[in-house]
């Protein structure tokens, strides 16, 4: 029985708690949230106990930790938890400030504690199959790839102001997916950004519609297309164009009923929101994390993957602001070791 300690009783924390509850091989033991009400509510739902402090969680008899608290707390929690040696699954991002990210990851790596970063889209079944298929070589060599994520609606402006910007907040998932599928890191990134959805987003210093192009050393070209808003639900897909095959992780209708009439052959649109679309990935991610704890093959993103994705986000933002292509600062990865 794997006993979990959970930091954060909010939306994502609750999702993790539910997934733990649905499994026979694990149990939510203790929860901490600075907002006591949240922790109490979730504890009542799950039978876990409420931890009065962070340290209380770490002192508790637990086998694994999930960090699903607010972004500013991630770095400190990562340091504190990895010092204990207990395996950790931490939601992205590590921190919004690159120097903090590097310092935190450097410290965590020294402890050699198992840490997985919450890039949950790696666990989407179709995305994972696409990755495996490309990795197998059956599709030939990757030549171009498009990753699209749009909508459905932008978060509140109050969130946008503290999100770290569209590239660190949203596109970061797709930087991770792109590098994971391509199995190489871009030598250059170029990003276009516009404010098309809500002028308040521009006033907050951000963009809501963006395209990034990643130039890979192999010659492969990868485009990422993100928008904060669609009219038709949440649109996420990946297309890998390879020398022998085209592999598509397609736009998924939220159900498969079709109605044909004079209006045409109509089918359901995509899921209403990103969570509806991605909910199964949290279960699969937990499964992957547990397998990692049990010593089986590691799946899921590492802290270093998190650093890579964030270095790309930094470069993308710089490119969007300057209008020029930018070389990501991969040399900073060397700061993580030594």
């Amino acid at each position, binding site marked *: 029985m794997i006993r979990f300690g959970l930091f954060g009783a909010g939306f994502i924390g609750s999702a993790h708690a539910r997934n733990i509850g649905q499994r026979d091989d694990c149990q939510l033991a203790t929860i901490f949230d600075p907002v006591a009400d949240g922790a109490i509510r979730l504890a009542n739902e799950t039978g876990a106990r409420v931890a009065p402090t962070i340290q209380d969680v770490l002192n508790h008899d637990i086998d694994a930790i999930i960090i699903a608290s607010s972004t500013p707390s991630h770095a400190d929690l990562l340091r504190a938890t990895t010092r204990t040696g207990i395996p950790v699954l931490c939601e992205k991002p590590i921190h919004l400030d690159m120097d903090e990210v590097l310092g935190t990851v450097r410290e965590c790596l020294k402890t050699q504690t198992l840490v997985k970063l919450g890039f949950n889209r790696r666990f989407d079944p179709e995305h994972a199959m696409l990755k495996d298929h490309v990795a197998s070589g059956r599709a030939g060599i990757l030549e171009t790839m498009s990753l699209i994520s749009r909508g459905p609606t932008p978060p509140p402006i109050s969130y946008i102001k503290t999100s770290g910007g569209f590239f660190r907040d949203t596109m970061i998932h797709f930087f991770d997916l792109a590098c994971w599928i391509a199995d190489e890191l871009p030598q250059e990134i170029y990003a276009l950004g*516009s404010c098309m959805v809500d002028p308040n987003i521009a006033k907050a210093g951000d963009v809501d519609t963006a395209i990034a192009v990643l130039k890979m050393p192999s010659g492969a070209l990868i485009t990422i297309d993100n928008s904060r808003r669609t009219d038709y639900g949440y649109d996420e897909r990946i297309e890998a164009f390879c020398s022998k095959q085209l592999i598509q992780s397609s736009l998924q209708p939220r159900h498969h009923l079709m109605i044909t009439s004079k209006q045409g052959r109509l089918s359901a649109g995509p899921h209403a929101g990103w969570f509806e679309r991605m909910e199964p990935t949290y279960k699969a991610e937990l499964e992957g994390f547990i397998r990692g704890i049990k010593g089986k093959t590691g799946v899921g993103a590492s802290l270093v993957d998190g650093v890579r994705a964030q270095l790309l986000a930094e470069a993308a933002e710089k490119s969007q602001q300057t209008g020029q292509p930018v070389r990501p600062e991969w040399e900073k990865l060397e700061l993580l070791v030594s």
Partner: protein
Amino acid sequence: MNRIALVGAGRMAKVHVLALRAAGAHLTIVCDIIEEAAKKLALETGARFTTSIDEAVSHPDVDAVIIATPSDTHVEYILKAVAAGKAVMCEKPIAPALSDAQRCVDELGDKAEQVFLAFNRRFDAGHSTLKRGVKAGEIGALEQLTITSRDPFPPPLDYIPRSGGLFRDMMIHDFDMARWILDEEPVRLFAEGSSIVDPEIGKLGDIDTAVVTMLTASGKQAVILNSRRAVYGYDQRVEAFGAKGMLLSDNAPRNGVRKYSSALSGAPEPFRAFFLERYGESYRIEIETFLNCVAGGLPMPVNALDGLRAAYLAEAATDSLKLGSPLALNQDCKVTWK
């Protein structure tokens, strides 16, 4: 008003002959510098034949001249036909060299808008439906446009050195489509490309894989993806994403057959072989449109100015790739060098 002089008796001329027949037009005379070719086509169609461009364009029983000859003859023939007072439709490009295309448009003056430029993809049922939908506001304000164009195989290697390069030879159609659907000139363009399909193409100084991004003054973003080789077939797609929805003009299958078996499930023939098959109908509708405009004295929906601007975008892409840098464009799609 539909008596035609067809200049050129090669492959494209034969396509136009079929379209003219379907439109009920009368082919008066066929002109080709190779007498045998002109004579053969004339015999098949019941038209007269000549090797003289002057005779063809000044013929009294001709209302309109269609030019389907090698591109280095287009400027001379356009100017002669216009000077002879005939309506003119000319295959793209206006000229292999941009300076000649500019010279042609300059000499035509206000008549440039009356010369129909054969960007036939505008007349594809899917693409034109998409354009109509965008223009009618069906998807709200346009925000992102993605055009994917992949050929089933590259041209012969001995063609590449005189092709003008991928942007002028292949992407020219997509530049025209982008301008047409965006309904706004781009102000910035960045071209990225690789030779990863066939290194021999790279050795000839060309690319076979390209991604071009463009930005308009209002913030609209366009991406054009080209590949010289999609093993699975001729892949042509346009995706328009707006504030109120998305329109996709997808590939039309060769047939509607689907198969289900333990060995494989899906559509065995989802693509048509190449441009003549895929865009066959568009040539017919293009000619019909041209003839209607001639008969009704209507403005040409796609004209020499469009041809020139697409050529400037191809030039900008060629330069952008060489420099490794995005380029700013003015309202005529010309690069503004700082």
